[in-house]
């Protein structure tokens, strides 16, 4: 069973996530595309780290993305 502290921490995390989502939803189309481009780079880094640590290989379409980006 969660303690009051844990419940409060979870509520706080939910609140912060919701605030961030509200912020991203209100960005201009240009800023949203910039967010996507950042997200793609971060996501690729995660996939790469997973593969380097013995996990699943980077999916083919993300390899193509890497090649298209000249990374």
């Amino acid at each position: 069973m969660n303690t009051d502290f844990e419940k409060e921490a979870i509520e706080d995390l939910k609140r912060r996530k919701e605030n961030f989502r509200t912020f991203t939803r209100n960005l201009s189309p240009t800023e949203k595309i910039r967010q996507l481009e950042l997200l793609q780079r971060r996501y690729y880094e995660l996939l790469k780290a997973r593969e380097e640590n013995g996990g699943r290989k980077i999916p083919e379409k993300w390899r193509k993305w890497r090649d298209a980006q000249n990374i």
Partner: protein
Amino acid sequence: MKSSLPSTNLSVVISVLEDMQNAEIISAYAVGGAVAAILHDEAISTVDLDIFFFLTEPPKGLILSLEKIYDYARQNNFPFDKDFINIHGWLVQFVEASHSPLWTEAIETAETMTIDNHAAKVIDREHLAAMWIFAGRKKDIRKIEMFDEAAIMNAEILYNVLSRFDLLDRWRLQQHNFSDEYRF
């Protein structure tokens, strides 16, 4: 909040699409798929850019040839394979839309959004939702849920699109995932 990041390459892709229109290869286009979802709502992870379009010269018969698109890619040194054309780092999937009444209307009613001072055509939310319910994959339903959560679809317009394209039954199979506003 002002970003210090450089301009997005998507505006360069939009310029390429405009050039393809000027060269009379395509007559109209609209951004669809996850990138359209992002433009209407919030950033989610996606790797490709779906462009729904009409060829200027409509396809004759049942076999669709995208050879003019590939010729254009060759002439402009855009690498391509069977899945994507790489336009300035974006993996673009071209989807010819004329054989689908829903996709046709989605292009014809697309909204105009400004991206880095370029006017880009983007499929509207209700047509996107109809296209996703038709496709029916888990990731499509998740995108509808995302729109639902953000309450950004017009229920009346959505109902109208779904009924005209005979998609209400498919919608009803999934609507337990959506809020009351979008249960028909």
